[in-house]
């Protein structure tokens, strides 16, 4: 069967790719566009390592088909820093040592960015529930939660 031709926007850039019907958005990002920042940890939507924003909404890209990105806007970890300027969340993750192996980090940063866009002043409990779909096996989440809270405070100018 012929592949589908998809025209979409990734991190602000117009892109096109060809994909098969069953290829996920994650497959397309990684295999067709070489954007490997989103990771495959489970391919069942349980670990959140493949988190991206689709028209601003947080999704597991392993649960979205590549063809569904047609005409939409995808934001990935690769688009989070502005040139040399890291996003406050990225900076705070480094300052707080909020990553060990780092495999979950891109997904958690994308998810945290989506949280702060919705709720600039989350409580610890709100951060914990929002990130409950992003598994981290190394850190026990402590430093991740602290980094998100600290980034939120900085972004609010607090």
């Amino acid at each position: 069967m012929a592949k589908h031709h998809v025209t979409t926007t990734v991190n602000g850039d117009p892109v096109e790719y060809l994909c098969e019907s069953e290829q996920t958005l994650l497959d397309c990002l990684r295999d067709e566009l070489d954007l490997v920042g989103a990771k495959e940890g489970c391919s069942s939507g349980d670990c959140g390592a493949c988190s991206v924003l689709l028209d601003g909404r947080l999704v597991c890209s392993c649960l979205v088909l590549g063809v569904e990105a047609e005409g939409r806007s995808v934001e990935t970890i690769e688009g989070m820093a502005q040139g040399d300027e890291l996003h406050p969340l990225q900076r705070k993750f480094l300052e707080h040592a909020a990553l060990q192996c780092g495999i979950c980090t891109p997904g958690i940063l994308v998810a945290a960015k989506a949280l702060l866009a919705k709720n600039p002043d989350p409580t610890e409990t709100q951060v914990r529930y929002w990130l409950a779909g992003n598994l981290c096996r190394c850190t026990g989440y402590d430093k991740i939660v602290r980094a998100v809270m600290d980034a939120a405070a900085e972004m609010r100018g607090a």
Partner: protein
Amino acid sequence: MQERVKKPQFDVVGTRPVRPDGVDKVTGRAKYGADLKMAGQLVGKVLRSPHAHARIKSIDVSKALSMPGVKAIVTRDDFADQASEFVPAGEMLINYRDVVRNILAREKVLYEGHAIAAVAAISEKVAIAALDAIKVDYEVLPHVIDEIEAMKADAPLLQEDMITQGVTPAPTKASNVAKRVEFTLGDTAKGFAEADVIIEREFKTKAVHQGYIEPHACLASVSEDGSADLWTTTQGHWVKRAHCAKLLGWDVTKIRVTSSEIGGGFGGKTVIYLEPLALALSKKAHRPVKMVMSREEVFKSTGPTSGGTVRVKMGAKKDGRITAAEGEIILQAGAFQGSPVQPACMCAFANYDLENVKVIGFDVVSNRPKVAAYRAPGGPISTYGVESVVDELAEKLGIDPIDLRLKNAAKEGTKAAYGPKFGPVGLVECLEAAKESDHWKAPLGPNQGRGIAAGFWFNIGGETTVSLQLNEDGTLTLMAGTPDIGGLRASLCMMAAEELKVDVHKIRPIIADTSSLGYNFLTGGSRSAFSSGMATVEAARSIVKQACQRAAKLWEIPEEAVTWEDGEVRPAGENAGKHKPMTLSDIGKIAGKTGGAIVGYAAISAQGAAPSFGVHIADTEVDPGTGKVTVTRYTAIQDAGRAIHPSYVEGQFQGGAVQGIGWALNEEYIYGPDGKLQNAGFLDYRVPVASDLPMIDTIIVEVPNPRHPYGVRGIGETPIVPPMAAIGASVRRASGVRFFELPMSPPKVLKAMKAAGKA
């Protein structure tokens, strides 16, 4: 966060700089196992057994091989059989006869998910279709999952020639019991006769998986002359090189292994699964082959660690002095021998200074995936039983559980039941820190309880090579060979910067491939910061020595007349003041003219690894309506020897504690009567998520290891040892019921509370 870090005596050690590999990890740039792509690469997939136990009568790959796009298939026939030979893999041993059978089944499949064949094809779709076209004729055999059932005389035999080792006289009949081990000290009968209180309990724990978020992945490329490049996510690329060379019969030098960034390992990435298959497929197909496991494959075919049965008997005097301790530890090995029963036995009573100890262990095979190392392999299982009994002793004797432990704590000079005498160790300091902590004194709410438990891990050293190069502008390049899973590069650069008095950010570290650096044993046994740190310090000191030699040459004075002070090379003695001191930057500039590049190289077998003790305090709240246990407060206290980068030391404490919380409350391998794993996915296996947990407080205790230049002890494994018993003790006080089985999941807790009239 409370800290007991003493006043910094160093410029860099003990500070918290941003890690050198950090920016790549927050921008998505870092390359993990599945992130590399090569031109012309094929996709490799594995055919796995649907049966828990079956004889393989035949494997027919002819139809699959004739499919368009299928480039190569490997089966048992592509790997020569191996003689029985045990080699170290982390703190555990592996046997090549078993490894060759685990990577691809030979006579039988021994567990659901056991690999049978591997296919390389032009796409995943074609590869999967080819797997479907491979015809395997099985004779399905009865299976056994439970370790106690597997020990019975009439149990289905996994290996028909397995004669229990460590029993005299040797049994004449084969069984599923691979090995019996025993450690004794003193006379336990005498000790129990002196006891005022004796408690004897049996505990059950379930198999649990390391649960790294990155599945196993590799990319192999073999050229026509047999030279191979292997990119893989691993805790030890030299060790994997050795295993692959052995199984393939290739020269070691032909295989160049590069470790990718590694997305978690916890012991589970010390062994080989995909690598020899990818290499063999690539050699056959003459193209690169990439292989990535699915999460289901990770659960069914890799790791986990043992479940087991632990029997503990301890006796104590009224004053709390423990007079005797006995343990019997039966661990699941999975389909091939080699559970961590030996370290489990050695750890069991290591927290205590005891005169009379006897521990017996059994290594039992059953139709489960072969266990792999998991953070302090074996330690958490035996310690769960022992520390739970210690808690019960404290309750019976009416003694505070910290005081009871202090009365019996192992300290410098204590002879452990497994042999050695401890040097300086920090258990007493950790217990005292626990007692003084805000947490221990804080009030509890309704349905809440507080528990405490201690833990121990040995830690190891071993073969380590580091190269440190002084560049022409005075910056440095550091090559280490122990994969960095959680901040190693940061701590190595910090030790080098401390030695050389340079800005830590002027040192760029890499994890070198196996062709670029001398041999390195793997990242395991909490050895990487200890061993690679020791080698880094030696390499840095070599740079200092060479810098002095170069200055002496330039100044035309004897080498002895040059000293290194405050980051400068200075003329000393009668030459003092006669020449302008030189910094490393100055030396770097003149290196070419004074003898060539300046490289510090250390190839060592690191000796003097020291154990780390830890103490955890857990508060839980138990819902009497549902049996759900919630951890409401948690503190991990541990002796780090010296925390080079305290944030990453805390991170190890926190991460290990949370893996232990998962083990205590919800993680388990669940098998159906068909011998198949029923929860092979993150949703049903359910590792802890952010909303399950409170902050994990940490207290770093520092009792320096005298055998390391900065006092470092390994710290990565101990944090998973105390949590299960600490939570068990906490749940006991919160619910009024004492539990003897993990996980303490809501249905079990509710049932026990109802039975005890507490719900």
